């Protein structure tokens, strides 16, 4: 559980600090990994791990769907602005 917490906070730090939208998507993937690990670890001590396994199953599918949308948005942003740096994109918008 502590590893999962550390991975989630690492990913959140990566999301807030990254200067590249692709790195932001990768950081989100690391957050999803941490959440999956936390959900899985929550079911290890109990009688049945089926609830936690099903939650991890749903989390995997939801995380992959969100990432697919994120990658498509990143590619579209690159086509429109020619850069993946969020601050440069903000300047180009104005």
């Amino acid at each position, binding site marked *: 559980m502590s590893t999962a917490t550390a991975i989630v906070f690492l990913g959140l730090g990566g999301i807030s600090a990254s200067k590249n939208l692709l790195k932001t998507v*990768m950081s989100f993937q690391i957050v999803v*990994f941490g959440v999956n690990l936390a959900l899985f670890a929550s079911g*290890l001590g109990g009688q049945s791990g089926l609830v936690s396994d099903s939650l991890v199953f749903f989390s995997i599918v939801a995380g992959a769907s969100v990432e697919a949308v994120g990658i498509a948005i990143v590619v579209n942003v690159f086509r429109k602005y020619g850069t993946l740096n969020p601050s440069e994109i903000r300047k180009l918008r104005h």
Partner: protein
Amino acid sequence: MSNEVALLSSAALLGTAVTALYSKRVSISLIMLFYSSVILGVVFTFYGSALIGVLHIITFAGAVSVMLLTAVLMTGESNLSIGAGAAKASLIGAALVLATVASSLLFGGLPSNLGAQPTPSPLAVLQFIWLYRPWDLLIMLMIFASSMVVVVNLFSKEGR
């Protein structure tokens, strides 16, 4: 044995996550992300959820990694060079070790005394979801389908 594996896998997960986040090259980040997905899949398999482990590896190390690689190639963010000879050799060695461990755990089966509590059957998770959480399954299918519609819609705007 279980504690040592937990410690090793935690260290490997944290190391690959930190390297993926703080590496300058996007290609190195991509490779480390691939490694961390495989390690997490191996952890799930080791603790008795082979179905979740295989699904995790297929989804994140397979599909999402290929999508990210395609995005990197389309945006030209990296020249996909992974550095000098030593870095290449270490990455290839790590990949070989990971592939060996993953394949032996996934396809060789686990001894009964390893892991915390092996589930009776990998398909028990699917049976449980089908019997007790069918609405969640429907919602998940709707999320997946709508995300695919959004992705197709975003990519169909090319040239406009």
